């Protein structure tokens, strides 16, 4: 059976599979694996012959189909495997197909809603009373827009940012974060807390450097009640608010 199908018309392997099941008028919960697998592979083969690249997802599904088909063709299981064989090898695939079908339907349904600038139109004129002085185009803001803006900024200045090539094995910035995390929620902690465990000499040095950096940035207070008493570290700001990745080595001169 030859089916003139272009893969790009399908949203993915599940979509193609659903199409084949429907054109064959099969019961989705009782897929004829031999037939479907054959047809699916022939579609893929056609694509290859036409020199069209077939996306990995379609190939993965082909492998899955072949696997299920072979499991169904296995001779009746002996008693030991009986339990496992009770599960229809198609079950997972059927579940995914039905679930996918569900969202496909929902998408169609959603698309029938009257949409803005398609069926429904809004008032576009802004009255002077509302517009106010110096209105700039409002920007949609959310976490994504924030990340996008930063990404754009960095890209715009990429040439200069590229300088930070050599990566240290231990980053002062990372250790700054570790220290801040360690202090989070504590009024203060003793210096010794930060040098416990089996840290390497290098780690000890970097931890200490990180502390000095924090003091320099006025984010950390160090106190001692008297000579030879424990040294206490505390945050000098209520909430450090430093995000991983926000501190660049280059800024500390250790790069």
């Amino acid at each position, binding site marked *: 059976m030859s089916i003139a199908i272009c893969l790009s018309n399908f*949203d993915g392997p*599940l979509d193609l599979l659903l199409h084949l099941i429907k054109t064959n008028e099969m019961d*989705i*919960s009782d897929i004829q694996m031999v037939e479907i697998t054959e047809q699916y592979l022939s579609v893929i083969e056609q694509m290859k012959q036409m020199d069209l690249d077939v996306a990995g997802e379609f190939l993965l599904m082909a492998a899955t189909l072949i696997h299920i088909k072979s499991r169904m063709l296995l001779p009746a299981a002996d008693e030991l495997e009986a339990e496992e064989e009770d599960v229809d090898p198609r079950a997972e695939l059927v579940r995914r197909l039905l679930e996918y079908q569900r*969202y496909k339907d929902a998408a169609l349904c959603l698309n029938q*809603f009257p949409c803005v*600038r*398609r069926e429904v139109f809004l008032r576009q004129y*802004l009255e002077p009373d509302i517009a106010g002085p110096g209105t700039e185009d409002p920007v949609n803001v959310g976490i994504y827009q924030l990340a996008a803006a930063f990404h754009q900024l960095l890209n715009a200045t990429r040439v200069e940012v590229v300088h930070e090539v050599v990566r240290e094995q231990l980053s002062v910035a990372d250790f700054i974060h570790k220290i801040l995390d360690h202090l989070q929620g504590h009024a203060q902690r003793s210096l010794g807390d930060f040098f416990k465990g089996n840290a390497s000499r290098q780690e000890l040095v970097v931890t200490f450097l990180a502390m000095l950096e924090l003091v320099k940035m006025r984010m950390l207070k160090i106190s001692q009640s008297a000579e030879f008493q424990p040294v206490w570290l505390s945050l000098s700001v209520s909430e450090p608010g430093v995000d991983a990745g926000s501190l660049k080595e280059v800024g500390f001169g250790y790069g």
Partner: protein
Amino acid sequence: MDERCRAVAALIFAAESPLTLERLCAIFDCQRADLRPVVDRLLELYPVSQSGFYLAEIAGGYQFRTDPDLGHWLVKLSRDRPFRFSQAALETLAMVAYRQPVTRGEIEYLRGVDSGGVLKTLLDKGFLRILGKKDVPGRPLMYGTSKQFLEFFGLKDLNGLPTLKEFSALDPALDPGAEASPEFPLDIKSEHNSARNGI
């Protein structure tokens, strides 16, 4: 119409986006209970398919919109082609709408294809937003729909989404013939149809 009622109508009319009762209350310095009847009155005064535009409850607020059945006239106002979703975008949008908060991995499992590009486009267009990171290993980003999503599809809130057809893979009584006709919740379907047919 008393002045407050007129003012409420004017404010909703002039606002750039759906005006919530909260903001109206802030402007008039009064309680929701004071303004609720005013808004209800306006909803009655500007029903759909009567005068060309109507007062709609959208994304938790109120907004005047043109009647959906007049769309073919209004597209003539602008030269731009009306906005269209691709199948991939619509499906992804539907999945996020129903399953939010949802991760990219979950969507890709459902769709069976890489969905980074579609997600990015939907984020760029403002239909989706990042809700945070999931508290599982790897801390993947979680996605949800935005207010603009509700505005675009004219939904009051997420409950306005059509109900998802229930299914059970193990249900032998599953009727494959029913697939082509997803269930519309009656209210939406009828409101919709009347909006389209009504004159």
